[in-house]
């Protein structure tokens, strides 16, 4: 056993046993962040705060929610919304945060793509981030089942049907996932388990991996400049704070981070109190009814772009392209053959066009995914879906021609 001396203070006592000063240095005050960044670098912290809001509001909702097909709807819409003091507030926070978290994830993701933050050395940051995106998607979907309204039921029906694999007719797999022929009690209970236990655990683990992946390559900067963190941090610690290209995570970077978080929270609570309806689909305020299909079934807005890639094609081709859309982002570090790790706008015309077209096209796909697949909307959706696939196929070719800037 290590040698322990009589502690001179509580801090010293903890230091001898937990090395709290060392931990604080490694995690915060001597974890180095480049100075050449903008507010988009605060999105990680914004996501952490939003996830915390989801976790805390979720714990409060869990105290009253009942995962039973007969009582689930009323436990949400009657007990929580009307009987529990401030139950409506926790539900609105949970619902709005579940939607807004995806807006921030998309901003975070496109920031990464724009600044080339997935390039050599940072692949694990990108992969762990995409795994987080997938688990957040599963978390959002499983949570959407819980109020057991019409949209819960029919979204559950549509999404589980995807696992039949079109012509493969893997109907047994669909029944195995549902635990029944149709979404019913077994289905609700297992999605409840996924939503409140397994997926949150996976998310917590992946957040740990995401942070760990940042440790060695460090965060990127606006110019994709390779910074010698050892030399720059030494400069900082030796007193040349102005000349060093880096700053402390805490409290230097955190102070700006928290300012961005503050502005974000004003926006967030504006949505919670005054503009929450976008996160609360009116159709889901009708109790689930297996005999009454709603006129329009559409997923929440953050799934619309991939839904629209599924929709315009025949069943099998649609499923293949849908699967393609789900995994293709993960492969970005290898599909981008360019030697440049700088902002998209400075990598030359082809990639600049690729980036902005991808962003615009995903917004078009998102819009078309919600609109009824009729007339001009299905034509636009078809063209956009084809364009999405074509852009990814073209990416290795256009980036391999890029010259070092």
């Amino acid at each position, binding site marked *: 056993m290590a040698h322990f001396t009589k502690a001179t203070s509580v801090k010293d006592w903890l230091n001898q046993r937990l090395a709290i000063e060392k931990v604080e240095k490694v995690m915060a005050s001597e974890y180095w962040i480049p100075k050449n960044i*903008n*507010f*988009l670098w605060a999105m990680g912290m914004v996501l952490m705060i939003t996830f915390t809001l989801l976790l805390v509001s979720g714990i409060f909702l869990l105290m009253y929610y009942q995962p039973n097909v007969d009582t689930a709807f009323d436990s949400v819409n009657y007990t929580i919304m009307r009987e529990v003091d401030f139950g409506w507030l926790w539900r609105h926070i949970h619902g709005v945060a579940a939607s807004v978290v995806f807006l921030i994830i998309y901003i975070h993701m496109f920031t990464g793509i724009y600044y080339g933050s997935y390039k050599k050395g940072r692949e694990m940051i990108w992969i762990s981030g995409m795994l987080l995106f997938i688990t957040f998607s599963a978390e959002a979907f499983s949570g959407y089942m819980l109020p057991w309204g019409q949209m819960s039921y029919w979204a559950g029906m549509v999404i589980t049907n995807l696992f039949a694999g079109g012509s493969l007719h893997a109907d047994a797999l669909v029944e195995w996932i549902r635990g029944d022929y149709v979404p019913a009690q077994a289905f609700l209970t297992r999605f409840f388990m996924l939503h409140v236990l397994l997926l949150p655990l996976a998310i917590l683990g992946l957040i740990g991996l995401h942070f760990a992946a940042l440790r060695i390559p460090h965060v990127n900067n606006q110019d994709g400049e390779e910074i010698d963190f050892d030399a720059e941090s030494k400069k900082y610690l030796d007193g040349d704070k102005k000349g060093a290209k880096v700053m402390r995570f805490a409290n230097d970077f955190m102070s700006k981070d928290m300012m961005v978080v503050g502005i974000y929270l004003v926006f967030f609570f504006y949505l919670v109190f005054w503009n929450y309806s*976008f996160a609360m689909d009116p159709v889901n305020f009708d109790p689930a009814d297996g005999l009454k299909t709603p006129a329009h079934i559409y997923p929440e807005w953050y799934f619309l772009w991939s839904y629209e890639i599924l929709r315009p094609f025949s069943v099998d081709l649609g499923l293949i392209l849908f699967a393609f859309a789900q995994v293709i982002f993960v492969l970005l570090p290898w599909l981008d053959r360019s030697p440049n790790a700088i902002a998209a706008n400075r990598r030359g015309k082809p990639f600049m066009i690729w980036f902005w077209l991808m*962003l615009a096209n995903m*917004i078009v796909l*998102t*819009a078309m995914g*919600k609109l*009824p697949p009729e007339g001009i909307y299905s034509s636009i959706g078809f063209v956009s879906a084809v364009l999405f696939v074509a852009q990814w196929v073209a990416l290795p070719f256009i980036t391999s021609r890029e010259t070092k800037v």
Partner: protein
Amino acid sequence: MKNNEKVIFAVVVFFSLVTYYLVEPYAHHVLHKHVDSENFEYADLPVVTKTGDVARGQELVNGAGACVGCHSIDVAGVPSTMEPQMAAASYGVNPPDLSNAGTLYDEKFLTDVIKNPAHALKVEHKFDAASGQMHPMAPFYGAGGDLD
């Protein structure tokens, strides 16, 4: 690189708002067609310029217009020509009593529904004389050469 936070913020807000507009107000406007309020003004129907003459109106209702052939007018002591069940079976509809029609309906709507019910009720896609589908309420074709 110059730190251009305002421009970056504007870009983020712009794309977020475009997405919001398309997914929420625009999509819902397409999914759920606009329904006019109770103050609907029938702007698509022609403006009524002529003033009526009560005596001639009564003459028309009872005579050439043949309104009372189907409709009852309780306040004027005009009974309906058929029992409701019978009327429903014959016409597919039950002709409403006209006692309060003048108060109940907008002036523009009332004049137009008499002249062309399928048009005023916006059911021309179902009742098209050319395809042999007449509206259960026959249009008034005019009396004495002047439709209005």
